[in-house]
Each structure stands twice: as structure tokens, then as C-alpha cells.
């Protein structure tokens, strides 16, 4: 702020409060809808203030699901989402940190080719190669499995670049010292590089967890068995029925539960989240 202008300050507060309200508006309505009975949505306009059915609605969704729309209990779907998000986040970090280590600390034939092969994944989002990728996964017999849900998404150029960048800033003297002390490459990797990139790993984990949890198209395609449904992909199946049979309260309870974990991660780990976001864009 350069100069004190009370009117501008007031205006800025006004803009921000409006912004916060607009951003929160759909979530408030979703929350309100999730606390009413199904009959509240049959006619007229939707309620704007919470009802009393909240605990019952959430209990039904978590425990039994909605059989009419083929939705298994949300407890199961959320567990699947959690497993998927954790495997994707940890998997991406694990294979990227070793790749970056290989690219930065070794000289070997075709090193540049390997680097470019990884780089290219940046340009091939799953949406554009969806049919052939699906076919590969089907041929490998990975449909309806956690491996099929996660492994095809696990390559990461962004994470590899991030760790490469981090390693390049680590002084060469550290490695020389480690070698003089008789440490081999894996010992150096385990005892020096990983501890030194701990905060980068944590920041990246936050971003990748959100990425993994919010996967939509891929889980929708590779899971046909309700045992492997994830909550984000499952919402579409529920909402399809909501137009015909009014059960907006249940759909909105699912919506609230689907966004709760990733939003909580952003709110409670805001510093790591911002760090991760900025770093992955470099």
C-alpha cells in the first residue's frame, strides 16, 4: 500500500467480502440442501437455511449409500478415493525423486533421451489419449483394481523437474564430502538428498494429493465394479438420478463429503500448498 485512502480501503474490503461470499455461495447452498428432507426439493424454491435432517442424511450416505442410483456407501467410496490419492501422490514422488537423482548425479548414454521421454508426458493429458490408454489397461487386465486406477497416472514430468531443480541447488561439496567419507550413491541419496528436500516433498505431496483425490474421467472409465468406485467419480452417477427422483439432499451430502478432505488440506496446510503450487509451475 502506497498511500492511505480510506475510501479505497473501504472499497477493497467491500470487493473482498463480495468475493468471499460469491466463492462460498454454492457451497453454502450445497450444505443447506444436505440438511433437509428429500421432500423439500419437490416444489417451489430451495431452502436457504439449514434444516434438521443433516445428521440423518450424512449417516445414511456414509453407512448405506443410495441403492436407487447404484451408489455404494460413501464410506467405501471415500476410502477408495483416499487409497487412490495416497498411491498417486506417493508413487509420483517416489518415481520422480529417483528419476531426478539419476538425471542429475549420473552420466550415462541416452541420458538426454530419457529426460525428453519424461518431459513429453507433460504434453499428453489423459483426456487426449483416452481410448488407446483405456485399451492398454484393459489388455493388461487392470480394470477394476487399484493398480489400474493409479499406475497409468503416476508418471510425472512436473515432479521430476521440481526435484531436478532442487538437486541442482545443492552444493557439490556435499557430495564430495560424502564420497570422501565413503558413502555410495544410495547412501548419499537416502541420508543427504531426501532429508534436504523434505519440505519440497511435503509441498508437492499436498498438490498431488489434491490432484489424485479429484481424478474424474479415469476412475469413471476403469471402474465398473462398485467396490472400486471413488467418491468424485461417483457423484456423477448419483446426480444423473437426482433429476428424475428428487434426492438432492443425498447428492449434496455426497458433494460436501467429496470436497471436504482436499479443502481441509488446503486450509490447514496453506503454506505448503502455496509453496507446492508455485514450485510445480517453474
Amino acid at each position, binding site marked *: *500500500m*502506497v*498511500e492511505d*485512502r480510506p475510501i479505497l480501503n473501504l*472499497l*477493497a*474490503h467491500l*470487493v473482498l467480502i463480495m*468475493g468471499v461470499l460469491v*466463492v462460498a*455461495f*454454492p457451497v453454502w447452498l*450445497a450444505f443447506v440442501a444436505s440438511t433437509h428432507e428429500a421432500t423439500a426439493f419437490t*416444489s417451489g424454491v430451495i431452502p436457504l437455511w439449514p434444516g434438521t435432517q443433516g445428521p440423518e442424511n450424512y449417516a445414511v450416505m456414509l453407512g448405506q449409500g443410495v441403492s436407487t442410483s447404484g451408489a455404494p456407501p460413501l464410506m467405501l467410496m471415500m476410502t477408495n478415493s483416499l487409497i487412490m490419492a495416497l498411491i498417486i501422490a506417493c508413487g509420483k514422488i517416489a*518415481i520422480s525423486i*529417483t*528419476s531426478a*537423482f*539419476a*538425471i542429475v548425479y*549420473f*552420466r*550415462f548414454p541416452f*541420458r538426454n533421451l*530419457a529426460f525428453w521421454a*519424461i518431459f*513429453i508426458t*507433460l504434453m*499428453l*493429458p489423459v*483426456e*487426449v*489419449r*483416452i*481410448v*488407446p*490408454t*483405456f*485399451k492398454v489397461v484393459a489388455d493388461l487386465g487392470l480394470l477394476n483394481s487399484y493398480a489400474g486406477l493409479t499406475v497409468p497416472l503416476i*508418471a510425472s514430468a512436473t515432479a*521430476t523437474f521440481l526435484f531436478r531443480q532442487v538437486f*541442482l541447488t545443492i552444493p557439490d561439496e556435499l557430495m564430495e564430502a560424502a564420497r570422501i567419507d565413503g558413502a555410495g*550413491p544410495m547412501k*548419499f541419496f537416502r541420508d543427504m538428498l531426501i532429508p534436504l528436500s523434505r519440505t519440497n516433498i511435503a509441498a508437492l505431496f499436498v498438490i498431488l494429493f489434491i490432484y489424485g483425490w479429484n481424478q*474424474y*474421467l479415469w476412475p469413471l472409465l476403469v471402474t465398473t465394479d462398485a467396490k472400486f468406485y471413488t467418491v*468424485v467419480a461417483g*457423484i*456423477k452417477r448419483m*446426480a444423473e438420478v437426482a433429476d428424475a427422483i428428487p434426492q438432492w439432499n443425498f447428492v449434496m451430502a455426497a*458433494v460436501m463429503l467429496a*470436497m471436504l478432505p482436499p*479443502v481441509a488440506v*488446503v486450509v490447514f496446510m*496453506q503454506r505448503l*500448498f502455496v509453496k507446492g*503450487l*508455485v514450485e510445480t*509451475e*517453474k
Partner: protein
Amino acid sequence: MKRTIFGNQGLPWLLLAPQLAVTLVFFLWPAGQAVWQSFLREDAFGLKTSFIGLENYAALFRDPQYLNSMQVTAVFSISVAVLSLGLALLLALAVDRMLASSRIYTTLLVWPYAVAPVVAGIMWWFIFNPTIGIMPYVLRQMGYDWNHGLNGNDAMVLVVIASSWKQISYNFLFFVAGLQAIPASLREAAAIDGAGPVKRFFTITLPLLSPTTFFLLVVTITYTLFDTFPVIHATTEGGPAQSTNILVYKVFNDGFLGLNLGSSAAQSVILMAIVIGLTVIQFRWIERRVEY
């Protein structure tokens, strides 16, 4: 480049193996398949395939539905970019004036980043539901009969709002960082010379913010081209009458539901070319920023 390295020859391949294996099997091979398939024609039963060169591409550019899809994508992308960048800049400028409360406001504004696009789509779909939604009710009072199931413009407005709502948080964070990187002394000097806030914004802040704006424009366009698939799929499904059938949704629709593999593959290849173009632009911009 490191001056000192480890001498092993086998170990780096072992370290790279998992990443390269996933890349080859699930990225490069399918992408190659898509390119190859885009030159083939398969008959309705998948019994006979014949090589037809660029015919699939030629057919696409003769197809009014594909040309319509391109136009729809352009309208959609530009609308989301303008709306989400504009609002994010406004909010970032306001936060930049705050001292003590900036952290609270930031927290309250960034969380939609974590909301899945499909969830954003469903929430706005609910708000705009023609029979019970709150917005159609308000609009009816004002004399407008909203129905995104019948009116293509209404459907477009719905998906634009839902997609922008989610992207504002991201653009906001980067605009705030961009504003903080502008040296305060520049704006102070201008203020001493008698430039008011509006003049300072247009002569100092906006030009110095242009690298950030350009970067966010590229990121947002990439977002509208690919990551908004769930919004379309969960709400309008490309309709009504193709009015929200964006390119990435059409690839999916033609390939999985229409089973027109050759055409879908050709569309995939065109989309890949677009991503490659956008990625190159993004990386060239970053190189320039480093020099700067």
C-alpha cells in the same frame, strides 16, 4: 550440471526404470496408437481396417459438428479466461491493499482450488436447476425464463460460471505473488509525482504484471481445454444441440460412445498438437522470465 558425479552405469537405469516404464506403456505407446489410428478407417464391426492417410482429418474439417465444436471451445475458453482472470485481478488488487487481514482473505479465497471440477459443476447445476434452483427463481422475477436444458446460451453461461468459479483461486494466488514482486518504490515514486491510484494501475502495475497475466492466460486456456471435461460431462453433456460440446468432450463422445475410432483419434492428435503448442509457449515464457 553437476561437476562431480557418481560413476555407476547400471544404477541410473535402475532408478529411472519405473518412471520410464510407466511413460512408455501408458503415455508414449497409447499416444503412438492414437496417431496411427488417425490414419485408419475401421468398419462398423471392427473386422476390417484400411489405411486412408489424412482422410480422417479432411473429414473432420468438412464436418459442421467439428467446426461448431471448435467455435464452442473458443467461446468457452475466452469467456472463462476473461471472467476468471478479471475477477482474480480485482481481488488480488484489493488484497494487496490489506496489511493485517490479507492472510484471512487469502485463506477464504483460495480453497476452491481443491474442489474437483465435477463437484463445482454439480453445485452450479443445482443452483441453476430450472425447477427448484435459486438463480432461475431470481431470473424469473426479473422476467427471464432460464432453462439450460433447452437454451444453448443458458447452458454455456452455466458451464462458464462453474469453470471460472474454480479457476479464480489459482489466478488470484499468482496475481498476488506478481503484485508483491513489483517494487513498492516504483509506485511510491509515481504517487509522489502526483499519479492517482487509477493512473498508477494502468501505467505501472498492469505493464509490470503482464508476464504474470500472460502466464496465467496460457494456464487458464490449458485448463479450459482439458480439465473442464468433468464440468461438461456432469452437467450439460455437450448439449443442448451441441451448444457446449467442447473439443475434449467430443473426443470422448465420439471414441467411447460413438465408437468412431478413426475420427476420435484424429481429434486426439489435433488436441495433442494444441497442448504441445501451449507447453512450448509456456516454457519459452519461463525462459524469458529467468533472463529478466
